[in-house]
């Protein structure tokens, strides 16, 4: 009986986390389009519901009723599995995100490694979709994205090492709590910039959306997808973007901590702060989409391997020597 109670309690907690994440993914798509339109002096989606808030729900409803077309020459199992993998991986990562000191689904020892692992698995949805379509454009898109995501993962890993040097723990709550006095965005500002750009590349956002560059590859890996399967790719992508924003705010912007520990700020509940930080990063993502032209593929690779990787490696050495010299290393 007690086990059953624990089981249902966990299910309830998972739903309590997943449903808000899914709803906020829908809202974030709307926000993205609105910000994009705002920059380009358009109105954006403003018809369905107040301010067009329900536009994404209407879109999702449309996708549900559309026909799912599976190409005859495709590898059907993998073709169907690909969007499911993308969506699942985008959602399971939320299990370790701490929204406050107590509100976290799984407070595991290696939380940041788990996040990193799940975000690096995200490439499989794309490769599987691109290969299983058995068509040229999706395959080219899949190859591009595989190379791109593997490259930028490396620099994200090195950036995480920078943060971990200052924390001394892989636990996400510890990472947030160690920023009580100083957010890491201040001492590690260059790393924050590189993390932000790598996150753009890791989530295939413009200006690095080469896997789905419409001018060259129609729609890249999702060319053959239709109906709800396309919608799952699309929602999974946005859930991934939110996840990257959450990761950035936990690593650099102090997670759920309020910026100043003074009266009007510290009464606001902790999860609100995390959400505000995620929104801030997301609006930056959306603005960049609107104002920066797309990179060429060789420029993308050059940026990742020849500029970001050496720079962040040098920064690791710098951070480590600084901490060593001033005897600030954690855990001593």
């Amino acid at each position, binding site marked *: 009986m007690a086990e059953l109670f624990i089981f249902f309690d966990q299910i309830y907690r998972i739903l309590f986390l997943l449903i808000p994440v899914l709803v906020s993914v829908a809202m974030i798509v709307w926000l993205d389009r609105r910000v994009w339109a705002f920059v380009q002096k358009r109105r954006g989606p403003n018809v369905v519901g107040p301010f067009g808030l329900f536009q994404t729900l209407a879109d999702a409803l449309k996708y549900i009723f559309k026909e799912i077309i599976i190409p005859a020459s495709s590898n059907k199992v993998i073709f169907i599995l690909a969007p499911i993998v993308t969506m699942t991986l985008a959602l399971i990562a939320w299990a370790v995100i701490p929204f406050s000191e107590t509100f976290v689904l799984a407070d595991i020892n290696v939380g940041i490694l788990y996040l990193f692992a799940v975000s690096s698995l995200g490439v499989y949805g794309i490769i599987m979709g691109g*290969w299983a379509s058995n068509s040229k454009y999706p395959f080219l898109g899949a190859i591009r994205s595989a190379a791109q995501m593997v490259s930028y993962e490396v620099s994200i890993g090195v950036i995480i090492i920078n943060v971990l040097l200052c924390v001394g723990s892989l636990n996400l709550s510890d990472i947030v709590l160690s920023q009580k006095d100083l957010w890491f965005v201040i001492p590690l500002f260059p790393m924050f910039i590189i993390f932000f750009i790598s996150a753009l590349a890791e989530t295939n956002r413009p200006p690095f959306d080469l896997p789905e560059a419409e001018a060259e590859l129609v729609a890249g890996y999702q060319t053959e997808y239709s109906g709800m399967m396309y919608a799952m790719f699309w929602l999974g992508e946005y859930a991934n973007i939110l996840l990257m924003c959450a990761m950035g705010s936990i690593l650099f912007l102090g997670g759920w901590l309020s910026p100043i520990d003074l009266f009007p700020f510290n009464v606001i509940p902790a999860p609100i702060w995390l959400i505000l930080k995620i929104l801030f990063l997301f609006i930056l993502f959306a603005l960049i989409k609107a104002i920066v032209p797309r990179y060429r593929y060789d420029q993308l690779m050059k940026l990742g391997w020849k500029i970001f990787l050496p720079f962040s490696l040098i920064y690791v050495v710098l951070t480590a020597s600084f901490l060593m010299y001033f005897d600030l290393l954690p855990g001593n």
Partner: protein
Amino acid sequence: MIAHAIVFYIFSLIAIVSAIMVTVSKNTVNSVFFLILDFISISCLFIMIGAEFLGMIMLIVYVGAVAVLFLFVVMMLNVAQQKNEWFNSSGRSSHIPVGLLVSIIIFFELIIVIGGWKYKPDLLDSIAIEINTDLTNTQSLGSVIYTDYIHLFQLSGMVLLVAMIGAIVLTFRQRSGVKRQSYFKQISRDRKDGIELVDVENNKGVKIDA
């Protein structure tokens, strides 16, 4: 405890079945996908015995990077066709004896390891470094690798470096006639290098690219 056992058997069943499917399945790409499934279930097993750092690193390195590139290669090259040619051709393939040799060596190594475990259960006591169970295993790994085993650690790093340089040397080819972009050249260009004003005589024209 029962739940733990059930989960353990589920993961190990998935691991074994997918390992068999890697060798059995006809389609090479499917083999790689089963290999990935195998990696994932093995790392789940690692996490279940409390080696969470090892499990996560396995996910990141093997599944997140190595298997992606593996998949990449298998998709690009037509490996399935080659495999069929080897098996169907009348002449003996030279790959099979080598593969057999390697697998026999691995088999005997496994027998030695498992046999040692079975007949010498106090093997753990003979390890020089005592294991502190209070620390998380990330911490205890870190405190050992960079101090007591620093030479071995550096040595394996050197091996990886050599392998990396070897791979680059093997695949690198300098192509001629490729237009390369140099940011410094582009930025340091100014009006003098880019524009030339010429007084053109009537009915003569200008010769460009002189």
